[in-house]
């Protein structure tokens, strides 16, 4: 048997909508097999992972909290990926955004003002954007591979922030623990619901999703993004500049990752410490693809990935399943999403080798 692909004349809108659902279904099937092999009742495990968290108000709030940075980062990445710019350094931009936003509360710990929060958010976005500008500039100016440079910068950002919170920014009263002084009240993002964990960053995420969706699907800028990603040569013929697009996409994506970072620092941790880097920048890649690089799809995809995180924590407590299984789930999901996307542009045929002939 040989598998071969037949190009569809027009892409299939049916599979375009169906492919993320199919991918989720495949992942669940695979999860069933995996849990059986680990000796855990698969029905129970999948219930704990994907249903139980939705039955509990506290856990739902945790999901929203977790989804917020994932969504913000993934929306930026969707603009990058659509335009053919492979920014995989969002984790670094997220960290530097968090760190930049923390400058004012760290150096002026007593400064209180209603303007403080907007200033911090803007600083966070500037920090993320500046950090993303490095690979963008190197690509536009020298043609340096942005995949490698943006990734290398993640390690550098991690080391840099680590140095800050253990060195110059460490709270002298912090009992030797790494981390800055806790922020004062006016530097903390308000909660979504009183005394809850989820913060105002979620509102940013929803607003950004709507805004970027509008930009991508309704405006000439969005058209430019898609043209340059799909076919750079035709883009040049249309009068669009690949280099300017690289800068634009990275700056936007960096700014959103930076916003996610400072929202997390200000709304959730309430200070800058050494535990900000949790891999959201990489998980957001999965979110972006699962959401089919569409900001509204990403809203849903971000919640699904967040659910898998929270479900993983629950499964660890209830079933003693390693929460590393969560990462495996997420990785598999990305694989299945990519594989199912093939169905959008191709029909898959299975042919017995005697009929196939050919040499491929």
């Amino acid at each position, binding site marked *: 048997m040989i598998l071969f692909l037949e190009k569809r004349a027009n892409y299939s809108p049916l599979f375009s909508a169906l492919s993320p659902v199919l991918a989720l279904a495949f992942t669940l099937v695979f999860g069933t097999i995996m849990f059986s092999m680990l000796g855990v009742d698969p029905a129970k495990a999948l219930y704990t992972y994907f249903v139980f968290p939705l039955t509990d108000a506290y856990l739902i709030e945790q999901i929203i909290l977790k989804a917020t940075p994932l969504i913000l980062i993934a929306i930026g990445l969707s603009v990058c990926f659509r335009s053919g710019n492979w920014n995989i350094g969002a984790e670094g931009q997220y960290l530097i955004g968090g760190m930049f936003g923390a400058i004012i509360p760290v150096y002026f710990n007593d400064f209180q003002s209603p303007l403080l929060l907007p200033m911090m958010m803007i600083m966070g976005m500037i920090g993320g954007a500046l950090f993303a500008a490095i690979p963008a500039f190197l690509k536009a100016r020298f*043609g340096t591979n942005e995949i490698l440079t943006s*990734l290398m910068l993640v390690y550098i950002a991690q080391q840099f922030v680590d140095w800050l919170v253990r060195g110059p920014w460490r709270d002298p009263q912090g009992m030797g623990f790494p981390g800055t002084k806790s922020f004062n009240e006016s530097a903390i993002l308000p909660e979504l619901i009183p005394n809850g964990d989820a913060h105002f960053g979620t509102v940013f995420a929803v607003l950004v999703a709507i805004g970027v969706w509008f930009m991508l699907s309704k405006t000439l800028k969005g058209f430019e993004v898609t043209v340059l990603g799909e076919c750079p040569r035709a883009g040049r013929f249309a009068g669009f500049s690949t280099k300017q697009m690289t800068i634009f996409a990275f700056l936007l994506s960096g700014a959103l990752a930076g916003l996610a970072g400072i929202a997390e620092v200000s709304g959730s941790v309430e200070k800058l410490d050494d535990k900000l880097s949790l891999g959201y920048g990489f998980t957001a890649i999965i979110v972006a693809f699962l959401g089919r690089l569409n900001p509204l799809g990403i809203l849903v995809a971000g919640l699904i990935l967040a659910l898998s995180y929270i479900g993983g924590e629950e499964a660890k407590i209830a079933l003693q399943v*390693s929460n590393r299984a969560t990462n495996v789930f997420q990785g598999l999901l990305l*694989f299945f999403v990519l594989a199912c*996307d093939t169905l959008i542009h191709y029909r898959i045929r299975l042919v017995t080798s005697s009929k196939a002939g050919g040499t491929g």
Partner: protein
Amino acid sequence: MDAQIVVSILISVCVASTPLLLAATGELVVERSGVLNLGVEGMMIIGAVAGFSVAQITGNPYIGALVAIGAGAVFSLLFAFLTLSLVTNQVATGLALTILGLGLSGMIGEGFVGQPGIKMTPIDIPILSDLPLVGKLLFGQDAIFYTSLILVGLVSWFLFRTRAGLMLRSVGDNAKSAHALGIPVIRIRYMAVMFGGACSGLAGAHLSLVYVPQWVEGMTAGRGWIALALVVFASWRPARLLVGAYLFGAVTIAQFHAQALGISIPAQFLTSLPYLATIIVLVIIARNRRMTMINTPASLGQPFVPDR
């Protein structure tokens, strides 16, 4: 400085360079066939955990290394199937392979965290390894070190002196033409990807059986990505990989000795050095566009669907 110290530093440079050299050699063959596999980091860490766990269970690091080679190759098949049979985007699929590899290795290795590892003992070549100074450096190292050097030579010979190597290069240059001539494009690419997976697997085993030797989650720490950068640095020529890998090995070792020499730079900055060096090297290479363009396999990363 004492000559003995110099030799021991040089040996540590060899140890730091070997995994980079191995992974980069494998990826070089993959890219020469026109496929860009960004999953090196993921395949390496799978090799590291497979090698470590099998060595712990069997008590034999060599069996561990062999299993790591197999595990890397099998894991790379996942990438090959998606990109070659289902023509998915190679960049995205490579990222997926890395993400899955990091997750899977964390799960497999969870039970091994903190266990003291079994180090692969150096092979002392009798008499020669007793030579003063150079003896231990050249003739007293572990089997994977020698393998890495032999492999570079073999790959160079294969690519430029054999017919099969010529076919592989032709596929990387122009898959359509190769297909028209009846060269089995997809089959060659499958084999190249699996070879790359095997090399990355062995590179990972070197980390967990020689370099550290322990299982630490995420222990590859970006080495797979540095290996990818090295292939660009070497402009797809195996011999230049040797230079690049040892340069980076030296930078890595320099950070330890800088601290020992009492240079008062924060540790975090020294740890950043290899990553910073990678960026700088990439910029320097990219500035010479003519050389990059001539040497880059022309069909690198391009999807190919044979018509029937």
